[in-house]
């Protein structure tokens, strides 16, 4: 006879529903519940507004030991940086954030801190994000942490303020979706390609209203950092969040992190985390499955992450779009990007390449790109501006210990200090109007990387190979 319960969960429960139940303080009304928030992370871009709002209303942070803050969005990534930034008025955000963090007593990873870095890179690195924990941040890419099996999602500044003041949020329960991947990723095909393919298939609104669990053999085989890359872009599906059930790889990854439990507490936690998976027969509101055994590297041609093709496929014609609205969007995107239907992405010369962002700036991303440079001996093509921006101080030091900085620099890449850098344009650094960039970032929106900048998103391998070729191309690992 099957037990009716395991670790307190009814049999047949999805991972998401388990996490929801664990954090439900009370139901409110309709589909809304009051959820307990285990960790809050802020950054100087939107967190500063939330902290200021709190201070103005003379409220305090209810559990300051559960709230953290970093400087990543506005701070420069050039060597020798200070509070002064290339972004006009950037200093105001940095100073205000530091002041508010001091006033409220929360832990800040300031510019000179050894652990400073991009919020979604440092929160798993420091063990602030852990399996089963609820974590919010006023940043849409907070869903990254679903890769550890955390219940993590992006909110606005007002909601962040609510969480700081009350340790809770009022949340409307999303529906559940499972996206299963059969087959294994081929050589040179990465988690980035997998998520771009998924967005291309399901559309930029395909996950709206859903918490998406990614599952299947392709996911089981992914290293932890690749899972973070995959879940990072769940927000580009407009999903509430993305999730992957924690397994032994995740436990090994989390062990001995700065804020992770130790000793007996670790044993207890690790045992509990084993139960955080969707039960056999658990029912989802929606399911998709893809066989990705023959998946090719993906590249975007347009201005939405859903505008992707196999890297060697032709750019589609607007007249083949599914409806009039999509047709208009394709046309607009092609005008902006300066690409023509029927051509291939390899037909277009590249002006710049960017390796970094909360999607692809972890050690494994840098190792992969550096290995390509080392193996091929290729240099960045003439006229291409190429940057590599490690995601955190820890990543930077680990990469330097392996000599990756030398490999990047001698190939013609700039080697930067950790931060979000040119993933988006805040008024400081930009590539320039009409510049074509191969980028490991997550958004190819009009103007995202600067006025008129033409962003093509792809994997670190694709970006490094393109930087060297001088045009868009997929890389190989052998």
């Amino acid at each position, binding site marked *: 006879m099957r037990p009716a319960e395991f670790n*307190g969960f009814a049999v047949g429960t999805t991972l998401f529903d388990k996490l929801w139940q*664990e954090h439900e*303080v*009370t139901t409110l*009304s*309709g589909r*809304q519940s009051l959820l*307990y928030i285990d960790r809050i992370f802020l950054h100087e*871009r*939107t967190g500063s*507004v939330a902290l200021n*709002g709190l201070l103005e*209303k003379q*409220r305090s942070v209810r559990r300051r*030991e559960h709230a953290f803050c970093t400087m990543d969005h506005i701070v420069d990534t050039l060597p020798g940086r200070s509070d002064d930034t290339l972004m006009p*008025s950037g200093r*105001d955000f940095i100073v205000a*954030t530091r002041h508010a963090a001091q006033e409220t007593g929360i*832990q800040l990873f300031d510019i000179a801190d050894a652990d400073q870095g991009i919020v979604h890179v440092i929160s798993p690195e420091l063990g602030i994000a852990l399996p089963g*924990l609820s974590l919010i941040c*006023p*940043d*849409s890419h907070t869903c990254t942490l679903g890769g550890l099996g955390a219940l993590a999602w992006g*909110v*606005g500044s*007002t*909601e962040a*303020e*609510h969480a700081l*003041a*009350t*340790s*809770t949020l*009022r949340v*409307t329960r999303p529906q559940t979706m499972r996206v299963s991947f059969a087959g294994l990723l081929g050589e040179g095909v990465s988690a980035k390609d997998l998520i771009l393919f998924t967005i291309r298939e399901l559309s*930029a*609104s395909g996950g709206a*209203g859903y918490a998406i669990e990614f599952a299947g053999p392709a996911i089981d085989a992914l290293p932890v950092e690749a899972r973070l890359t995959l879940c990072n872009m769940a*927000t*580009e599906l*407009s999903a*509430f969040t993305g999730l992957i059930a924690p397994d032994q790889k995740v436990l090994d990854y989390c062990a001995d992190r700065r*804020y992770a*439990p130790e000793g007996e*507490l670790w044993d*207890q*936690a690790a045992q*509990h985390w084993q139960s955080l998976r969707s039960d056999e027969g658990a029912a989802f509101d929606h399911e998709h499955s893809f066989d990705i055994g023959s998946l090719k590297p993906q590249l975007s041609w347009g201005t939405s992450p*859903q505008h992707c093709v196999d890297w060697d496929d032709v750019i589609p014609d607007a007249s083949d779009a599914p409806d009039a*609205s999509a047709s208009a*969007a394709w046309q607009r995107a092609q005008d902006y990007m300066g690409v023509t239907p029927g051509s291939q992405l390899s037909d277009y010369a590249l002006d710049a390449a960017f390796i970094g962002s909360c999607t692809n700036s972890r050690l494994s991303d840098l190792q992969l790109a550096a290995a390509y440079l080392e193996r091929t001996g290729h240099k960045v093509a003439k006229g291409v501006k190429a940057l590599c921006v490690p995601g955190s101080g820890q990543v930077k030091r680990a990469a330097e210990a392996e000599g990756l900085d030398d490999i990047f620099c001698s190939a013609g890449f700039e080697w930067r200090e950790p931060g979000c850098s040119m993933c*988006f*344009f*805040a*008024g400081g650094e930009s590539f320039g109007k009409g510049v074509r960039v191969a980028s490991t970032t997550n*958004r190819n*929106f009009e*103007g*995202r990387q600067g*006025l008129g900048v033409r962003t093509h998103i792809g994997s670190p391998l694709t970006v490094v190979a393109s930087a060297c070729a001088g045009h868009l191309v997929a890389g190989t690992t052998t």
Partner: protein
Amino acid sequence: MTPFTKHRGLALPLLRDNIDTDAIIPSREMRTVSRSGLAVGLFAPWRYLDPEARTPNPEFALNQSEYSGATILLAGDNFGCGSSREHAVWALMESGFRAVIAPSFATIFRNNALRNGLLTVALAQHDLDELVAWVSVAPARHTIQLDLEACTIESDPEREKKVFSVDPTARDMLLKGLDEIGLTEQLSDLVACFEDQDQARRPWVYLESN
């Protein structure tokens, strides 16, 4: 926050799908640590031929006199996708917008809107098309009325009012203009009780206070 009960206003159609928050207000337009001073940056990439010089783009509806004073935005699918920046909502409200009607919204944008008293109405495409057709004939005369109490949209008097559905909790919050933090603070006993039980169950979650 500003309560929303009933509103009649001029509607501006901006019928593109996936209008992201970088388009609603680019990062470079968020210049101060503040919720205000954002109206001038609203739709900056499309509204200005040269965003630096603020040269208006005459083709863009927001710059056309017939849409001057618009308070309701009619938009395409998945409005507000992308970045979580609440500045997108603040910029719309500071520019006078009280509501956005679209086939669907990105979740974070919708949540942010709700917390600031900006009504988001998800409306079927054909109903939205009818509204656009009605408005476009004579935007200043063909206004739209949104009634949150009755959950109806009134446009062409020749046609029946359109009914929309809205989450009851969200509706209540908007109608009363409730301060959510204040409401939740009233539940602090429940939260403390949850923590006591949870700490026994998941002790590793609770870090030592600094």
